[in-house]
């Protein structure tokens, strides 16, 4: 069911069992998981069904750190959220991503890979990929043309990616949400404050506002914030009427550890003879089902004390016409949608779809590197308020020397392997050559993957949420999505954030059976 909150009588009190704040990928996935349960789910979306500038402006903020994308177009503030301009890259996190690594400060999750693994299947279905199996051997059997480079498997491995169509959650799941009897979607319902009870241990209600001047209250037994890493932190910090530091922020951790993947051209691979490289073939929008990137094995990462990362091979011809993402991403969210639409229409004209062009001699390596958790990389509140009266954010994206060292080491290891096997030679780009220089190149971009601002930990001194994504110190407030990631891993977060959302949903179902059964609303 759907209601436009601008059309609801002012000061309405909306009640449900679970209130999900944010109808992006995590919020929609969680809501769908509760269809046909005896619980009333309130799904709040700040925007409507189309992107519009006024809604996007609520996300506008300052960036005082490393160069980054404009915040007003980085995330999409409408039903379906940022899936609206998602490229569709899917790959799971690796076991090492969850482990405590003594060379990576603040690393280690309170859950392990095995805890998340059962939920990848459900996540894979949501994003409409062929399988939750990402083993290279599995895909090799399906397509014998996927020939790997003859590298030492103890040093480098082929990390497989699958590509979602990509699933635009807004259009793909709109009908299912609207038809569900127990899901109540409210659009134009921007949460502006989270209010707790007098003991400051339980969230009692959230307040919502919109541009029509309407204000409402939503009461529920349980609240799930699924607004993306920046907005999740922003809402906790901005809800500071009862706790001056903000909700869940007794240890000044909310908003800290903001991470993205470092995505950048890093080196060239020169080969004397062309090789068949379909496995590493450049991604073609809505066409490529699977490809691999070169990644360092866990044992090699341990040996070199490096972060996790991958490198994709892009034929030189492709890169010649490609400008760095950071230079081309529009500050107008509607333009970012148009950009993807244009790519979609051009797909049949893609030169590199032709199989004879799988053979190349010269590649650029495009690296996607984990960012090490950094408490100084953070979201804070600005004095400036948005149009609904919520403080805007200041982003201070900060990188470390380990991040750069890891990028360089990955190139060197690939260089050693292609040298040892006489495949070719690697040449680092100018900005990576001086190992004593920790400056970053202006072409460095993020992957539009915001993570870490309400990180998961064993205890409240190290994180904001526990292993079940519940905010420490509160009985009924949960965070969904990649804001809970303590480390980012090498893979794009979408598949894993969905898996984590389904794990949270599972946890809430068990809890609901115990706590809601006597007084559920539906």
């Amino acid at each position, binding site marked *: 069911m759907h209601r436009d909150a601008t059309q609801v009588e002012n000061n309405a009190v909306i009640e449900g069992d679970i209130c999900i704040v944010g109808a992006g990928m995590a919020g929609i996935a969680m809501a769908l998981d509760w269809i046909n349960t005896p619980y009333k789910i309130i799904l709040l979306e700040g925007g409507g069904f189309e992107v519009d500038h006024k809604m996007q402006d609520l996300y506008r903020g300052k960036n005082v750190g490393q160069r980054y994308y404009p915040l007003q177009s980085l995330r999409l503030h409408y039903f379906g959220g940022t899936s609206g301009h998602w490229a569709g890259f899917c790959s799971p996190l690796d076991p090492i991503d969850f482990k405590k690594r003594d060379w990576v400060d603040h690393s280690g999750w309170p859950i392990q890979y095995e805890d998340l693994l059962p939920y990848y299947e459900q996540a894979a279905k949501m994003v409409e990929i062929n399988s939750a199996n990402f083993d290279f051997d599995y895909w090799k059997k399906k397509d014998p043309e996927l020939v790997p480079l003859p590298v030492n498997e103890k040093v480098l491995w082929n990390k497989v990616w699958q590509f979602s169509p990509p699933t635009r959650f807004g259009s793909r799941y709109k009908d299912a949400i609207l038809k569900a009897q127990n899901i109540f979607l409210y659009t134009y319902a921007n949460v502006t404050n989270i209010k707790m009870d007098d003991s400051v241990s339980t969230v009692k209600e959230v307040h919502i506002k919109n541009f029509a001047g309407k204000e409402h209250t939503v009461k529920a037994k349980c609240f799930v914030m699924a607004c993306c890493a920046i907005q999740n932190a922003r809402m906790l910090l901005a809800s500071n009427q009862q706790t001056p530091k903000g909700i869940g922020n007794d240890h000044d951790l909310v908003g800290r550890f903001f991470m993205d993947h470092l995505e950048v051209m890093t080196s060239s691979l020169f080969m*004397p003879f062309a090789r068949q490289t379909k496995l590493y073939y450049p991604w073609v929008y809505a066409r490529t089902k699977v490809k691999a990137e070169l990644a360092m094995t866990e044992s090699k990462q341990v040996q070199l004390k490096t972060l996790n990362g991958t490198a994709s091979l892009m034929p030189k011809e492709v890169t010649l016409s490609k400008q760095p993402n950071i230079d081309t991403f529009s500050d107008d969210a509607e333009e970012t949608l148009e950009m993807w639409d244009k790519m979609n229409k051009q797909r049949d004209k893609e030169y590199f779809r032709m199989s004879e062009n799988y053979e190349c001699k010269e590649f650029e390596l495009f690296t996607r590197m984990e960012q090490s958790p950094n408490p100084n990389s953070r979201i804070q509140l600005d004095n400036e308020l948005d149009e609904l009266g919520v403080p805007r954010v200041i982003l201070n994206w900060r990188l470390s020397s380990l991040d750069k060292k890891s990028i360089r080491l990955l190139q060197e290891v690939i260089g*050693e392997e292609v040298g*040892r096997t006489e495949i070719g*030679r690697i040449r680092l780009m100018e900005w990576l*050559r001086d190992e004593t220089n920790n400056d970053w190149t202006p072409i460095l971009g993020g992957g539009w993957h915001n993570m870490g601002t309400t990180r998961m930990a064993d205890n409240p001194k190290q994180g904001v949420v526990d292993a079940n994504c519940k905010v420490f110190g509160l009985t009924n407030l949960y965070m969904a999505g990649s804001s809970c990631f303590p480390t980012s891993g090498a893979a794009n977060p979408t598949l894993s954030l969905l898996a984590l959302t389904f794990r949270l949903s599972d946890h809430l179902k068990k809890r609901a059976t115990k706590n809601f059964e006597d007084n559920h609303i539906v």
Partner: protein
Amino acid sequence: MKRRSFIVGSILSVVGAGVFSFMQWMRNSGTARALAYPKFLSQLCDSDTIQSLGRAYLKLKPEETRDDVLLNDLLTEKSRKDFLKNHDIVKAESQIEKKIMCDFATDNIVVVQGWVLSITEARQCAFFSLLNP
């Protein structure tokens, strides 16, 4: 003491003369040029680039700016003796190639002008730059 110095001095002179004569022979025979040419890398770079890489390497390792030092490092003692005995250039080149692959396998690399090179092939480039000033 004087006797000891005399003996050490004599040994060094003999070894030095050996290396000197080996180098002289190498230069004169033109064999040095062949051994100084990084075969695999030359498929990717032209001679000017190889020279430039060589000069850059020597800036990183100025103590190696002598062809006898570089040649010593390119060939093991055993292969140098074999080479003097059999004059088998193909075998010597093959031994250098093996050494290059071994360098890559054992993390014995150097980054020169961005190129991730085996130390041995970087020395080849350096040797090449000395022979082609």
